[in-house]
């Protein structure tokens, strides 16, 4: 297993360094969850403890208190440069969308205003292929038009670790360094590297969060796993999906597809 984690790590570090060599200016989305925190650890490994670009929290003001506390703790402990970017209010979203999808749209819009303000040409995102059917379609370097839209039916070919790193003016690229990891990989790596985590992932009173989102649209799942060891064991036996607690994915049949094609992470 440790060889497997070494391979995943080496590949992610290669991708992160490739992005840094090729894309400027860039930033990394840090949602404070387990995936992007593990990714932040990989970034620090890639740059020997440094984080040479800003981290961004797309903040809806609706994250759970424990999430904000964790952000503040790590920002201080690791001396991070964090842009806390406020997303536009829910009233500004398309009112015909179902409520959870609408709430999630705030992040999409927040990302757009972030790109407009800071002119980032690349944004590092901690999505994984095994999370959700549509994310599985992603490329490691995934180009977006200025409005963030994603043409999943006509993606550029990508092979032999040569990525598409140049774009016409007005486009940006999403970089996905942990696309090839699975949920269990993340947990095993977090355990091995002793990466700090928000407490909400661990069971209290028979419930835990498997995936962290805004408090209005994320629910805990039944679980007694109170440490990483137990979580790994739970994941190796469960057949329910990681995003089962995320309402926005399945309000209507294609709500996640809609969200993503409009620029959601």
């Amino acid at each position, binding site marked *: *297993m440790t*060889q*497997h984690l*070494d*391979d995943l*790590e*080496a*590949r992610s*570090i*290669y991708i992160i*360094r*490739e992005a*840094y*060599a*090729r894309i*400027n200016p860039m930033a990394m989305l840090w949602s404070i969850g387990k995936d992007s925190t593990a990714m932040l650890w990989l970034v*620090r*490994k*890639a*740059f*020997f*403890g*440094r984080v*040479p670009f800003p981290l961004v929290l797309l903040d809806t003001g609706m994250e759970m208190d424990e999430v904000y506390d964790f952000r503040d703790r790590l920002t201080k402990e690791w001396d991070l440069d964090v842009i806390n970017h406020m997303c536009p209010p829910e009233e500004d979203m398309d009112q015909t969308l179902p409520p959870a999808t609408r709430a999630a749209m705030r992040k999409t819009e927040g990302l757009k205003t972030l790109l407009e303000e800071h002119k980032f040409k690349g944004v590092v995102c901690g999505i994984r*292929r*095994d*999370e*959700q*059917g*549509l994310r*599985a*379609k992603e*490329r490691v370097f995934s180009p977006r038009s200025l409005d963030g839209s994603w043409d*999943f039916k006509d*993606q*550029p*070919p*990508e*092979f*032999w670790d*040569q990525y*598409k790193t*140049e*774009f*016409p003016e007005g486009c940006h690229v999403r970089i996905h360094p942990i696309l090839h990891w*699975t949920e269990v990989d993340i947990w095993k790596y977090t355990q091995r590297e002793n990466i700090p985590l928000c407490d909400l992932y661990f069971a209290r009173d028979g419930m835990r969060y498997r995936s962290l989102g805004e408090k209005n649209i994320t629910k805990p799942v039944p679980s007694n796993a109170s440490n990483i060891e137990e979580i790994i064991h739970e994941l190796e036996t469960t*057949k*329910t*999906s*990681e*995003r*089962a607690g*995320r309402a926005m*994915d*399945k309000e*209507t*049949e*294609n709500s*996640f*597809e809609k969200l993503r094609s409009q620029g959601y992470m």
Partner: protein
Amino acid sequence: MTKKKLSQKLGVVIVGHVDHGKSTLIGRLLNDTNSLEDGKIDEIKAVCERRNVPFEWSFVLDAFQAERDQAVTIDTTQIFFSSSARDYVIIDAPGHREFLKNMISGAAQADAAVLVVDAAEGVREQTRRHAYMLHLLGMKQIAVVINKMDKVDYNPESFEAVSKECEAYLGSIGLQATFIVPIAARGGDMLSDRGDNLDWYKGKTLLEALDSFDVSSPPIAKPLRFPIQDVYRFEEKRILVGRVETGILRKGDTLFFSPTNEKAVVTSIESWPDNDQIVEVQAGQSVGITLSEPVFVERGHVASHEQNLPMLSNVFQANIFWLSEKALKVGNTYTVRYGTSEARVSVQSIDTLVDTQDLGKQDAAPEVPKNAVAEVTLRARDTLPIDPHKDNDKLGRVVIYDGYDVVGGGLLNMDGYPDQRSSDTPKSENIYKVSHSVTPEMRAGMLGHYGGIFWLTGLSGSGKSTLAVAVEKEIFARGKNIYVLDGDNVRHGLNADLGFSPEDRTENIRRIGEVAALQANAGVIVLSAFISPYQQDRDRARMAAPHHFHEIYVKADLATCEGRDPKGLYKKARSGEIKEFTGIDSPYEPPVNPDLVVDTEGNDIETCVKQIVDYIEANVQVGKIESKEEKIRVLK
């Protein structure tokens, strides 16, 4: 307790002709290995009943049809499943002809391939095409499944006939099927279970066949290749980072860098968070090292040991597949990337065009159309470190770009091309190392500033000369020794013998680069204002004095420059009076990674002048920095 699983995931690509049953095979395999979420099958059953169609295993994969997608963990691109022996990731490759690029994207990252062939239809167009691509991608582990055995009544003779047909084609392109398995994916026969219908077949099931394949292991036994990905500087350290592609790198090793012919010893292998004393790293690892000497190294250079060097050449052959609507043509210019190297190349010849159907070869074809396969000869402007694919399958493969887009890829061969290293004398030592008794610091102390080369590049009419003149005036007024090199003072004397052909342009820029280097070494701030349209030429100018060189992109688009046309040159070029005019009938390559971009379209002259003046001031200042060294990233 189950037996111990193999630790690494095996990547499998499923290829084959459209409707030969790839998706059904995957859906069924996921079900039979118990890899589907609870309720998934009931969900599909319900959908099929509602639509009044028979149950379809391929629906499992249809993630984009939203009514069949409810936050699942599977997809048509990457699907995870497990046998009792190991974990797998399936990379599905759509069989439609126009989706060849997806198939290549998938197959290029797989360890093994399953080629699906319909028992009733036999080998078809895409069977051949996909098999040929597997060959071109270097795939060695291939299982052929003869599917839909139910359609031929599980008849062993039908199986034999189609098997022979497959073997014949694969053999003709130098591929060999490791296994040929009869299956009926719909009923699940011979996938993970043997089923009851194919008792005459005594070989492995598909899953057993897959379990016997190996995950490609890192090539540690090959000669060391460490392509430099980037150079970071922090505190007192300069760290070269990259991935060891082949071989083993040890602390204390003497590394030899190509194409510069520089040498230095590995003083440390860096790590974080624990600064462990790492003494050895090997193929597949992303690492950082420090060197004993501050030799000039940058992205794209390749470190090896002193024995077993890569070849150096400016011309090479490649067996390529072509993915673009715009055909590859002789004379066209493209960018190739391999490892961390990037080079502009032009197509010297199309040596053979291969028909993947009948394997007919057409010599000296005029072009390579979309989805075709060919052997081509490419010529670069500079000599590049090259490993043919037969020696190094990581670095011996190129991806071809046209503008922003990936348009093809293939494998390098150097058959018949000599190593040019011997003819390439290491001139670096005379230039980079100060052999004068007067050091740059002493000069700077006297002059009040360091020397430097500020290389303006941009289209004709972008504003280079205007800015150069204004910047020279301003910097000089501040008591600094600055001198503008431009066409007027170079073309009439030093380069009076040169015209405007691509070769002469290259030579023109080479000479200017050398002159600028001499001047900068003498402590002068050199401001050059040449179109210098080719990245390779600018890169070479940088190589003449890497620690002095700053590439400044004076940016304005063609329409704007043509609108300005201060010397009436565009008009003449359009009318054909001037030939090979940059932007009109000769290309301009914008800087890939400029040190400064000055946008003359969006800003007025004063703003642009100030931008350049501030940049120069910051980079020639005494005491603050010891002038710039290479393209390094300073990390805080």
